[in-house]
């Protein structure tokens, strides 16, 4: 039996990605193919989908059945929500957020995209860049996904033609100039036959780039987290009140970005009080320095009044403490936004009352055009101004995802009705 490779536990990274495609682009087949060819499908799953394929009167194994989840979906042959899939290779562990491609499901894609490092957008080689492809790319860029991969699928149905592929790449690139991806990879694939997914196959010899799996395993994600700006929202204050630890007061939370060392000068926001880091404590014992995304406990030199919702930053660091800001707001609820109502906003570890004081424009997600609007309904995305009752410590979302995002909660239903990305503090 194989022993655990030395050091292998320390070096496997975690990559989260989403797959987006229109209905029938072969998205489920692609995920099935990734799982199957990376040997992540188990025998009992395979035998179950083989028998289902037969029961439906088809031949072979329909890999798309692997991602079917709920009874309702199986009955109707649709995907109704975000599902998460897991697989691992010796290099990386992967989490796929599988989001449906239907018109009405902008909210599901935004949800799946919010935690992703990378997006795979599927394009049917026969159909080229469709309205939905543009929408998926726009949403991926809005939510700030750092890496974009365009997988041109069903190459087997266009005779593996290089000119078809080139034309689609050119089309997509022209459109994507308006979005802020610093790099886009294009890969010709056939999810059905397996070409260029995990194996190269023998039909696409003109393509010299990486297979999809190579790319997923090798793309650098170490810069996806903001490493410059130390942000530490306090989650929980630990006061054990025991004999030995009578005066211990630990601030618990996760470093959302940047790094910190014992002795560093810190400022507590929004109060503006200053102190220094006395200890950084883990369960295992004290450490000298820590970085995002570690969950830690901090103690400081002075007795200050610090509670949940406060944010610790390095002294002198420029960040916004504000009661009003502009944001891109995605509306998630069947009940339209009511500008007259107060909502709750959860931002880092703080929950505050808020109103949408102005809707500047709505974005047509298909053309990216701006249009005037005075209301927001489900799946709408708009540029808005928001006023909050207590100041928030925030950053521009494109600079710092963790301190630039917020959700909107309806206080009467307790539902999550909106998701926002802060543009600029005013």
């Amino acid at each position, binding site marked *: 039996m*194989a022993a655990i490779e030395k050091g292998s536990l320390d070096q496997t990274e975690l990559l989260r990605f989403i797959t987006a495609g229109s209905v029938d682009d072969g998205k489920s087949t692609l995920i099935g193919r990734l799982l199957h060819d990376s040997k992540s499908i188990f025998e*009992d799953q395979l035998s179950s989908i083989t028998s289902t394929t037969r029961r439906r009167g088809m031949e072979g194994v329909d890999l798309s059945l692997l991602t079917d*989840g709920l009874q309702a979906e199986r009955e109707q042959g649709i995907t109704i929500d975000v599902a998460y899939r897991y697989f691992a290779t010796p290099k990386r562990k992967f989490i796929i957020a599988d989001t449906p491609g239907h018109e009405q499901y902008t909210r599901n894609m935004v949800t799946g995209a919010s935690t992703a490092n990378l997006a795979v957008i599927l394009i049917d080689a026969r159909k080229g860049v469709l309205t939905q492809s543009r929408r998926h790319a726009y949403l991926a860029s809005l939510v700030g996904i750092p890496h974009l991969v365009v997988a041109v699928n069903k190459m087997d149905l266009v005779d593996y033609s290089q000119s078809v592929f080139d034309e689609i790449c050119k089309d997509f690139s022209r459109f994507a100039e308006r979005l802020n991806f610093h790099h886009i990879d294009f890969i010709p694939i056939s999810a059905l036959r397996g070409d260029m997914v995990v194996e190269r196959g023998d039909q696409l010899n003109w393509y010299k780039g990486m297979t999809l799996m190579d790319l997923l395993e090798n793309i650098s994600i170490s810069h996806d987290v903001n490493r410059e700006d130390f942000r530490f929202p306090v989650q929980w204050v630990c006061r054990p009140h025991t004999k030995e630890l009578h005066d211990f007061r630990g601030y*618990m939370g996760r470093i959302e970005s940047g790094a910190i060392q014992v002795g560093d000068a810190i400022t507590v926001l929004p109060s503006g009080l200053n102190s220094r880091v006395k200890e950084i404590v883990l369960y295992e014992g004290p450490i000298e320095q820590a970085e995002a995304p570690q969950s830690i406990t901090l103690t400081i030199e002075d007795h200050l009044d610090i509670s949940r919702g406060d944010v610790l930053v390095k002294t002198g660091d420029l960040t916004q403490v504000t009661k009003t800001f502009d944001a891109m707001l995605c509306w998630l609820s069947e009940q339209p936004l009511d500008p007259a109502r107060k909502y709750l906003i959860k*931002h880092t570890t703080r929950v505050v009352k808020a109103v949408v004081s102005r809707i500047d424009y709505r974005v047509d997600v298909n053309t990216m055009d701006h249009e005037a609007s005075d209301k927001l309904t489900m799946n709408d995305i708009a540029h808005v101004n928001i006023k909050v009752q207590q100041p928030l410590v925030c950053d521009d979302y494109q600079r710092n*995802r963790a301190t630039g*995002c*917020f959700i909107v909660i309806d206080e009467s239903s307790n539902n999550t009705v909106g998701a926002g990305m802060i543009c600029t503090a005013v």
Partner: protein
Amino acid sequence: MSNRPFAHLDALESESIHIMREVAAECANPVLLFSGGKDSIVMLRLAEKAFRPCRFPFPLMHIDTEHNFPEVIEFRNHRAKELGERLIVRSMEDSIKKGRVVLRSETQSRNAFQSVTLLDAIAEFGFDACIGGARRDEEKARAKERIFSFRDEFGQWDPKNQRPELWDLYNTRTHSGENIRVFPISNWTELDVWEYIFREKLEVPSIYFAHEREVIRREAGLLPVSHLVQPEPGEQAQKMTVRFRTVGDMSCTCPVASDAASIEAIIAETAMTRITERGATRMDDQTSEASMELRKKEGYF
């Protein structure tokens, strides 16, 4: 500053600690479900990492089917005592005595009926959040569940109407009588759990390791012989070297043939196995394609 990317276990661990602290900070009366199984053993270590040197801001609770393996119950009691945390045990036997659960036979699997006892206990203590060790890779209905999974006042899960969950901003709000199930290790796989147990040197009940046991071959699996399971006519009990991949109701939890006697050997076996965790080990999940989904809608974990 090191440029070494964060190792996957560290990333998963930090996410789970963050989730536990959010529950503690935002929910009025949470509870952590602890069964003595491997996932809940990991949960206890994560709670230690999240809250020490303080005590846990919630009690532990076990819904006991009384069909549990004695080794696991012993381990459960020992671990709770070692941590110095409060352990609440609510027994299905009580639900049966009160007529809240009606079984067809004494030896029938009790997994599905845990929901009744669980919901009764939630009402008894007024818990607004139950923290559990379920993982999305276990089962296809779980793959669609949120980390903070909202349940109505009947404890029911409505898969088509879940709250959107974005970034790691969790909506923990409930009306009185409703509750939230929280799954801090949603994104862990079976292999991650064993690797973490190895890295953290965690103790686990002995039945996870290969041992000799009397079993019966029934349908696709092996069933352990006990006071609940005896050979039926035509069946023959045999001694085999086996271990359990999950621990649950003795009448339907099947061991697998294995000679993995250490955590390292279990990791190697898990990395190579070709059968899903529940596929090999839970007869109640095989009754229909949607068994778990149906049970969850009824309030099951």
